């Protein structure tokens, strides 16, 4: 085991996959000598050269289009789109090409690529650099959507995503880059679609992902003080999502709270709530609830931005209220 940051865990995963498979390469802005906006490619160009760690022009459409072409012609590209907000400049190539080629061409080709695009609010970077777009991608048939929260998951899931024959939208959270944690460099890739039960409990299930994992762990700790045992599940992968684990937990607790930073309206929490409601309405001891972002652009000014951050108090208060008010 080694302690490292979330960013370094990604470097390690990519390095290991590039050593393992000469068909793996990466392209994007600033990933060469600069090593990526958060150091998530640091040192890789020195080891693998500019042919495999390719600094590109600011041409998102072609970054993605080229990745699609390179993927159907025998390589496994990792595209860095910087922020999810810029991933939108490549939406056509992701949605109309990467996601559909295997299907339209009846399986003649697969599109094994990873599109990395960081999500989330971070220190006043405002409306065009702070969005969490996971629900957009989950809606598109053909795509896998991954959102790791820990260094260990960033390592194991990036490896799994690179080895996947599906196009993977890989959403790291900007505020998690410096987070430190234990990583086993020799660990097997984490299976795509498997969630992690972070804390065990029988009173309420809290489903979350990405940076909200930490908020929810904090909330679970506070809830313990009130003798409420919360089961926090970090989905890690949003498509496919680990329905089995969530349904098993909610069947046991009878209560479900979903927490995500992305806008609540049409957010992925709504999908989870609907699925769980349809499957388990007889077991529910109260309404399923969501804590998520307002349907508003993210503002710049600190006191305003703070209004968009979900606190662990909000989560623990809501969870405690759900447990108190629920039918026995």
């Amino acid at each position, binding site marked *: 085991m080694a302690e490292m940051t979330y960013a370094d865990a990604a470097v390690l995963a990519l390095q290991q996959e590039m050593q393992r498979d000469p*068909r793996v*390469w990466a392209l994007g802005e600033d990933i060469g000598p600069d090593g990526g906006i958060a150091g998530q490619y640091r040192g890789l160009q020195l080891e693998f050269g500019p*042919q*495999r760690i*390719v600094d*590109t*022009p600011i*041409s998102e*459409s*072609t970054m*993605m*289009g*080229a*990745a*699609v*072409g*390179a*993927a*159907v*012609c*025998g*390589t496994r*590209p990792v595209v860095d789109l910087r922020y999810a907000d810029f991933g939108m400049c490549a939406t*056509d*190539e992701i949605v*109309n*090409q990467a996601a559909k*080629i*295997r*299907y*339209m*061409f*009846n*399986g*003649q*080709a697969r599109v094994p690529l990873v599109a990395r695009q960081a999500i989330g609010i971070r220190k006043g970077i405002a409306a065009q650099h702070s969005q969490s777009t996971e629900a957009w991608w989950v809606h598109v*048939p*053909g*795509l*896998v959507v991954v959102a790791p929260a820990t260094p260990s998951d960033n390592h194991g899931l990036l490896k799994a995503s690179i080895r*996947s*024959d*599906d196009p993977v939208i890989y959403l790291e959270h900007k505020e998690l880059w410096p987070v430190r944690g234990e990583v086993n460099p020799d660990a097997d890739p984490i299976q*795509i*679609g498997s969630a992690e039960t972070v804390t065990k409990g029988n009173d309420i299930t809290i489903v979350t992902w990405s940076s909200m994992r930490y908020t929810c762990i904090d909330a679970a700790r506070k809830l313990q003080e009130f003798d409420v045992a919360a089961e926090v599940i970090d989905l890690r*992968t949003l*498509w*496919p999502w680990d329905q089995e684990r969530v349904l098993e937990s909610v069947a046991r607790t009878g209560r479900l709270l979903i927490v995500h930073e992305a806008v609540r309206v049409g957010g992925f929490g709504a999908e989870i709530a609907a*699925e769980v409601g349809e499957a388990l309405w007889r077991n529910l001891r109260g309404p399923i609830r969501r804590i998520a972002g307002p349907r508003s652009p993210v503002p710049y000014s600190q006191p305003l931005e703070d209004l968009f951050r979900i606190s662990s108090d909000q989560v623990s208060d809501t969870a405690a209220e759900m447990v108190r008010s629920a039918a026995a």
Partner: protein
Amino acid sequence: MQEPSASEQSSATDKTETNGSPEAWVPHSNEVVRIVEMFRTMHLIRAFDHAAARAWHEGRVRGSVHQYIGEEAIAVGVCANLRRVDYLASYHRGHGHAIAKGADVTRMMKELFGRADGTCGGKGGSMHIADFSVGMIGANGVVADGVTIAVGAAQAVKLLGEDKMVAAFFGDGAINRGPLMEALNWAAVYKLPVLFVCEDNGYAATVRTASVTAGPGIVARALSFGLRAETVDGNDVIAVDKMAEKLVGHIRAGEGPALLHATAHRWYGHYAHDKNLYRDPAELVRDRADDPIAGCSKWLVENGVAAEELKAIGLEAEAMIDGALTASDASPWPAPQAAFTDIQDAGAMSWQK
């Protein structure tokens, strides 16, 4: 065209014997044989697209059918210089590119008919024909998207150290999409083995491209990115072949990407349900005077090929397409589960929810 040299005239090939009609026993030069083959492929494309449009009007083919009739010389002249292993990325008007690259016309017609044994199992249709077995990596329903895919294919070729090149076809309507400009720059920056082929029929769907395009056009744009770029009469298959040979030579020599701007005429509407009413009837008549098949036929007759042989080639192409239509009608529909396969590995079958 130059007269064939004495040495060429004496080098008859097997092809003449296997493909020619009995009247054509007089040995043809290599050049004539090559042009006869191009003539044959142009006929096949034309017969295919006439049949496809007919089948569309009869309701046997659904969706959109974009006919390539009038532009056959471009695909054929360019593909005469490609090998099977080379890649070709196409666009919505893509039947001609697939046929010229060697795709099977019967399977293509079955694809248009939505049948299980179509090129893409009936899941793609006219605008999404791909045949990876001949390097045809896809037609495309989004204007200019095939071009960005093509530069990535070239990047894969380079990374894998393969001896291949990529041809990216697009129409003149695509020259005003940003991704095309990005891709030209990209190909030049990384010195990729790509031949960009702009098929300029003067129309972006129903709009005169000139009326919405500033500046001198695609050649100037390509030159400004440092590509080699040439214009050719896209009605003249021999000229296209010669120019493509030059540019392909440049690309295969590792000297970077090139662009071929080929002017031609779109005889019919943007797609089968477009009646072309926005065009001057006189213009349509003039267009047909430039018929690439008639032009090629004339050259071949002047160079010693019997008119009967050429006529037989045309009839043969039509018979082949008639056979494709009959086979398509008789082909099975895809099984219902085909609708839900090849979506993705992870989370497969979750569509059922």
